[in-house]
C-alpha cells in the first residue's frame, strides 16, 4: 500500500545559482502532470549549501495541494549529501558553505540532531558515493539510505547506485535533482505512510519505509491502485 509519492531532491532559483526553475513553476508543472495522470504529492527543496528556515511556501503550496518541504544538499569528502530535518543546532554546528565537509562529522551531527542524511546521486563519479565506497573511504555505519535513483544521473550511474543499495542493504530514495521546471517529479520516492511534514519524512526514512521509482512507474502503480 502506497500512501504518497514525493520527489526528495529539487533546486530552485530562490537559492541555487544553477537552477532555472521557480517554486511556483514546479507547482504549476505538477498540476499539469496530474491532469495527465501522473501522481506527485510533493517535493523537498534541497538547495545547494543553503538552508533558510524563514523561507516558507506553505500558502503557495496549499493553493496547488502540493506538499513542499525543506532540506539541503551539502558537499562532503565522499560526495553530495541530502539532509532532512535541519535544526538550529545543525545550522550552528556545520558550515553549510563548506564544499569539503567531513562526511563522518556531518552524518553524525545530523543523526544526533534527529535528522537524516542521504548520500545523493550515489552512482555518479566523484560527487556520488560509488567511487568513494570502492576506495573504502565511506563510514557506512552512518548511512541508512542512499539516493539510488537520480534524475540527473545516467542509466549506468543509477544502476551502480541500486547495486550499492542492495549490496549494503540500504533504503533507496528517488529524487529528480530538478533544476528546471519540467524535471520535477521525474524520479520519486514512494512512502507507505502519508508524509506532509519534515518530521514525518525523517521518521519514514529512518524506518526505511520508502522506495525509489520513476514518474512513469508511480503513474502505473497509482493507476492500478485506483
Amino acid at each position, binding site marked *: 500500500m502506497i500512501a504518497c509519492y514525493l520527489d526528495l531532491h529539487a533546486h530552485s532559483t530562490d537559492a541555487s545559482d*544553477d537552477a532555472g526553475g521557480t517554486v511556483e*513553476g514546479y507547482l*504549476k*508543472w505538477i498540476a499539469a502532470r496530474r491532469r495527465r495522470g501522473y501522481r506527485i504529492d510533493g517535493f523537498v527543496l534541497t538547495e545547494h549549501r543553503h538552508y533558510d528556515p524563514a523561507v516558507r511556501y506553505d500558502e503557495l503550496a496549499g493553493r496547488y495541494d502540493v506538499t513542499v518541504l525543506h532540506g539541503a544538499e551539502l558537499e562532503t569528502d565522499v560526495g553530495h549529501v541530502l539532509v532532512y530535518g535541519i535544526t538550529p543546532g545543525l545550522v550552528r554546528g556545520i558550515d553549510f558553505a563548506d564544499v569539503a565537509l567531513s562526511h563522518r562529522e556531518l552524518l553524525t551531527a545530523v543523526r544526533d540532531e534527529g535528522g537524516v542524511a542521504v548520500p545523493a546521486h550515489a552512482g555518479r563519479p566523484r560527487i556520488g558515493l560509488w567511487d568513494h565506497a570502492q576506495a573504502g573511504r565511506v563510514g557506512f555505519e552512518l548511512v541508512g539510505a542512499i539516493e539510488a535513483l537520480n534524475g*540527473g544521473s545516467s542509466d*549506468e550511474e543509477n544502476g551502480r547506485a541500486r547495486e550499492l543499495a542492495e549490496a549494503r542493504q540500504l533504503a533507496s530514495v528517488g529524487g529528480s535533482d530538478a533544476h*528546471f*521546471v519540467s524535471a520535477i517529479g521525474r524520479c520519486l520516492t514512494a512512502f507507505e505512510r502519508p508524509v506532509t511534514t519534515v518530521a514525518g519524512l525523517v521518521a519514514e526514512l529512518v524506518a526505511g519505509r520508502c522506495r525509489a521509482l520513476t514518474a512513469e512507474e508511480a503513474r502505473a502503480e497509482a493507476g492500478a491502485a485506483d
Partner: protein
Amino acid sequence: MSLTGTEQRYFGDAELGDEFEESYVARPELVETYLSVSRGNAQLDDEDGRFSDAAGAQALGLERPIVPGVMSLSIITRLVTDWAGPAGRLRTLDANFRRPVLHGDRLRLMALVTDASDESGIGRVTLDVYLENERGERPLQGTAVVELPHRPR
C-alpha cells in the same frame, strides 16, 4: 509557405505541459563543418583537438572528441525557433552545460512548455529545453522565452 519553411505557431496553440522533440546525431562531419564556418570564434579554439581529434580528446580525459558548447546551443536554439515559426520571437535562452556532448552521440532535442501568459497583448511562452543522450544524461538544459503572435481573427 513561410520564408523559413516552418509553420507559424500561435499563442493559443501552446499549453502548459506540451512537449516537442526531434532527434539529432552529433556526426563528426557536422562538427567539422561548424568549426570551419565559425573560424575565428575564440570559443572554438581547437588547438588541443578537443573538438576534432580522437587522440587529442583522449589526452584531455575525454572518451571521444566533443561537440562545442556553442554548437549545442545552436542546435537547441534551432529547435525552438522552428517551433515558434517565422513570426515568433526568441526573447531569451539560458542554458547550462552539465556534461559534454560527444561525437556520435544520438541526441533527443526536447522542449516543454512550462508557462504561457498574455502580457499586454503579447503571448509569452516559457520553455524548458534539453539535449538528452542515449545514456539517459542531459548534457545541456535550460529555459527559453518565446513571444508568439495571436491567431488572426
